[in-house]
């Protein structure tokens, strides 16, 4: 990774970047009622490992990578104020199609809504920062042409912000782990140091998943029923801290 790419990834991966992710637990908040007991560190790690290996890796990561590739087909010449070129229109349409595929393949309503809300918050920040493509893609979401899932928008905007495919996928994987462990810390399931102790193994899993190639026509194919049930339980909790 070149220094500029590393610094850009650090910028977007830092919790100081306002992307709305702090309000989402991806179902972790529903883990306790599902288990019938407070999850310990091993349970938190297993939950996140399932997310990485069986959901994010084969589903969101695939969409992110394919959107990243699609975003590069015409984006360099695009403006951000809606006056995008015909070439960029085609690139954004391709991203929107991949975006729709991911949304339709997400069985869990609460995770589907969460992916859209988190995507909208992420997009709102880039819109105000003027990241190329953000304005035009927001128009597609507003018109109903794209659902605006987080993974699709990450692929589009991180490409336009200068991250290469591997950097973008690694950053999204890092945020999944960091966000999950931060949520676990706020839920009182692990301490801050306990969360850090889980990081190396989980980031190792991310590195392994990111190293797997994504075929040009690969479709999202995640399957993580345990996490989906946890998310469904979370949505019905009488007291909730997180959006999902």
């Amino acid at each position, binding site marked *: 990774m070149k220094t500029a790419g590393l610094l850009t990834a650090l910028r977007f991966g830092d919790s100081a970047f*306002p992307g709305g992710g702090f309000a989402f637990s991806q179902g972790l908040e529903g883990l306790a009622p599902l288990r019938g007991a407070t999850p310990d560190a091993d349970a938190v790690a297993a939950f996140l490992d399932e997310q990485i290996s069986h959901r994010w890796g084969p589903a969101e990561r695939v969409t992110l990578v394919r959107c990243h590739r699609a975003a590069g087909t015409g984006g360099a010449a695009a403006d951000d104020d809606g006056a995008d070129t015909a070439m960029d229109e085609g690139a954004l349409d391709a991203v929107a199609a991949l975006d729709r595929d991911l949304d339709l393949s997400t069985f869990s309503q609460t995770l589907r809504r969460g992916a859209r809300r988190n995507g909208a918050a992420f997009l709102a920040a880039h819109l*105000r920062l003027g990241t*190329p493509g953000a304005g035009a893609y927001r128009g597609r979401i507003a018109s109903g042409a794209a659902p605006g899932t987080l993974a699709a928008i990450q692929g589009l905007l991180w490409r336009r*912000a200068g991250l290469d495919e591997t950097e973008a996928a690694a950053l999204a994987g890092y945020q999944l782990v960091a966000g999950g462990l931060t949520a676990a810390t706020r839920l009182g399931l692990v301490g801050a140091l306990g969360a850090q102790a889980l990081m190396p193994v989980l980031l190792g899993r991310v590195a392994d998943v990111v190293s797997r190639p994504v075929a040009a026509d690969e479709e999202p194919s995640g399957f993580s029923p345990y996490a989906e049930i946890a998310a469904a339980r979370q949505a019905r909790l009488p007291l909730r801290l*997180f959006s999902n």
Partner: protein
Amino acid sequence: MNALSPRLSPAPAMSPPNAARIGIGGPVGSGKTALIEALLPVLQARGVSVAVVTNDLVTAEDAERLRRSGIIDPARVLAVEAGACPHTVIREDPTLNMLAADELDARFPELDLVIIESGGDNLASTFSLDLVDWWIFVIDVAGGGDIPRKRGPGVLQCDLLVVNKVDLAPHVGVDLDVMLEEARHVRGGRPLVATACRAGLNIDQVADAIADAVLLRR
């Protein structure tokens, strides 16, 4: 391309919000929701079209309270989960609140004012100016007469300090005159209103302050 500032274009690249946005923050139980409940009829009587975003710590307690109050169309109240971080959702990362306000703007094109109510917090919470144009911080006499002396960022930085439940001062051993004088002193004379929201005391003054700050005079 792999640069730190790729194609930096002039931000922001979006249409400005239709309605003015104000924040109301303050400790748990200080009377933020009660202030909104008292303000809504006053603002509505002045012809101000209002919507509210609540940031409850858990569930949508305040949002539901407002929706059931009968004083505002329930569709004009949105709840945003704070992810256990009531500071973050109004300051470090206000994007979810921005989205909620944008949604209300889109739903109600005639909207004049969006009130964003913070989740109950401590004296350190402040609003990002990315999110609001102007903000109120609410404290109350039952929380202790020494609150102004503690000089929390909320008390010091807000555009208007509301000291609520002044009618309770004799019952909780607070010298109200001293508390208000100390509040004025630590704020360097910046605006302050003493209220009793349940009794409707001085709500007009708060509405006047809002109108002067962010609305055409109504």
